């Protein structure tokens, strides 16, 4: 039945592409400022890779807000926990990770990432049931409860793993760079870029091509009507919350490998970054989150290269600029 030929279509609302162009324009503007082409390529790849990692961490947060109007201030804890859990696999199997074979490396890296996602996803279940559900619909208490959750999670990590920084070396096969002429592109950054793109495309496909995705999009717009059509939106929400937590965990693993170290404080540090991304993108918008993440990463990389002192406040300046332009973020999704 679904092949009904629409005899007519209404004029589509003009697709809002200005935000999509923003990172492209920014990158092009930087060519003359950076000067050397090879530095520009390196910086741009670094921005995109960092942007993808941040996107992976932030995507869950934005969906959870869009769907259920829940602001999770403890989201950063999942990031840190993800990174810590990966070390439980990576460090004991360090010899595999450092073997000079991509397959052996992956044989330890993939299970590590999967374990992290499993643990953070399961924790997402607990957090949703214990901290979020009881104060559902009350923003103030949600913020307080999840902030409390963040403290508890962070302190538990200190108690379990100690206060020291834990090294998290990159597997041997992912070290080094591909050299193209005088441009060096780090292998790991390329991998991060790839994973980020795959996840972005996967999320977009799920949202646009599956019934679950339709339900999520419909729920972002009007939860009550989704329930009135007979769907249990709470279950859907739990699923999204767990997926978002697992993605934050994956992002944590990737970030840990990127920095080659883990510390409980990365949760705090990235919470701020992730919040800025989600605000810039427009709460609830995956596309906005994607662009926001790239913008934040670009500002950090180009800014750090051109005006290192500015890097301290560059994110805030970016946020102010974007919100002055669009007070609800690049793509405002929810009507709330």
């Amino acid at each position, binding site marked *: 039945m679904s092949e*009904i030929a629409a005899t007519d*279509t209404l004029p589509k609302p003009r697709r809002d592409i200005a935000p999509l162009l923003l990172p492209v324009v920014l990158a092009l503007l930087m060519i003359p400022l950076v000067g050397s082409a090879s530095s520009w390529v390196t910086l741009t790849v670094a921005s995109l890779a960092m942007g993808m990692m941040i996107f992976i961490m932030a995507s869950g947060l934005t969906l959870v807000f869009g769907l259920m109007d829940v602001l999770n201030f403890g989201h950063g804890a999942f990031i840190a926990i993800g990174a810590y859990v990966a070390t439980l696999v990576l460090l004991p199997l360090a010899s595999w990770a450092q073997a000079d074979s991509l397959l052996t490396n992956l044989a330890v890296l993939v299970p590590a990432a999967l374990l992290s996602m499993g643990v953070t996803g399961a924790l997402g279940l607990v957090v949703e049931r214990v901290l979020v559900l009881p104060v559902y619909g009350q923003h103030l208490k949600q913020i307080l409860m999840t902030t409390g959750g963040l403290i508890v999670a962070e302190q538990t990590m200190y108690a379990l793993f100690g206060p020291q920084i834990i090294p998290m070396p990159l597997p041997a096969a992912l070290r080094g760079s591909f050299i193209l002429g005088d441009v060096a592109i780090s292998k790991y950054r390329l991998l991060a870029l790839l994973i980020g793109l795959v996840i972005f495309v996967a999320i977009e496909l799920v949202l646009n091509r599956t*019934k679950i995705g339709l339900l999520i999009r419909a729920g972002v717009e009007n939860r009550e009507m989704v*329930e009135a059509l007979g769907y249990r939106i709470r279950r859907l929400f739990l699923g999204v919350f767990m997926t978002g937590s697992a993605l934050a965990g994956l992002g944590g693993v990737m970030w840990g490998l990127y920095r080659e170290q883990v510390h409980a404080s990365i949760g705090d540090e990235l919470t701020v970054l992730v919040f800025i991304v989600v605000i810039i993108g427009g709460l609830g918008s995956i596309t906005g989150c994607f662009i926001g993440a790239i913008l934040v990463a670009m500002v950090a990389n180009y800014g750090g290269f051109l005006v290192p002192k500015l890097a301290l406040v560059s994110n805030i300046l970016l946020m102010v600029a974007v919100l002055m332009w669009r007070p609800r973020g690049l793509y405002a999704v929810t009507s709330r």
Partner: protein
Amino acid sequence: MSALLKLSGVETYIGRYHILQGVDFEVPEGQTTMLLGRNGAGKTTTLRTIMGLWQAKTGSITLSGEPIEKLATPDIAQRGVGYVPESMAVFSDLTVKENLVLAARNGPLDDAQLAWIFGFFPALKKFWLSRAGSLSGGQKQMLSIARAIVEPRKLLLIDEPTKGLAPAIVMSLIECLKEIKRRGATILLVEQNFHAARELGDQVLVMDNGTIVHRGDMAALAADVPLQERLLGLSLEAHQ
């Protein structure tokens, strides 16, 4: 003629406000029951309470004899209640097709049912793949009703479908609702437009201050002008 839906002693609070103050009525199977009354009488709250979107504090609501007043909204919907809210609540980011795919909870869309719907809502076929947000007000209302009937439902709750629509569109909407009636649907319809109510209603309920103040045949009320004026007052003339 048995009662499909029965409310007795239903009281609903919204925050501190006591909106429904003991509502009792029955909706007979296979008929259209009109729920009339001035603004703020509690009509929308009644529908929302049946749907489980507000929780009744006391009283009972039964559907085919089974109590539903403690059930969550999705469970009530799954028992065969279709809801068309006042705001229409179409998912504007989704296409017409996607809106209906979601509404067909039990599987793929049924061709015959769709053909029937397209028979009186041709615009939905015309704009099948357009975003619901780009439809006109009347088309959105059609989509919202289509969502409720895309699969057979025991009971339809429809909240002021003619509100804010141009007279010509109201006329065609009334014809569509009549067609849905002919298929044997049981409908509880909130309406301010007395003309529409007279055309569609078998039974009539009039609400005021959170209770039912009149129940009877629509035809009898339509014939009795003094009673109309007493029950519905000025609001009636304004809508005629």
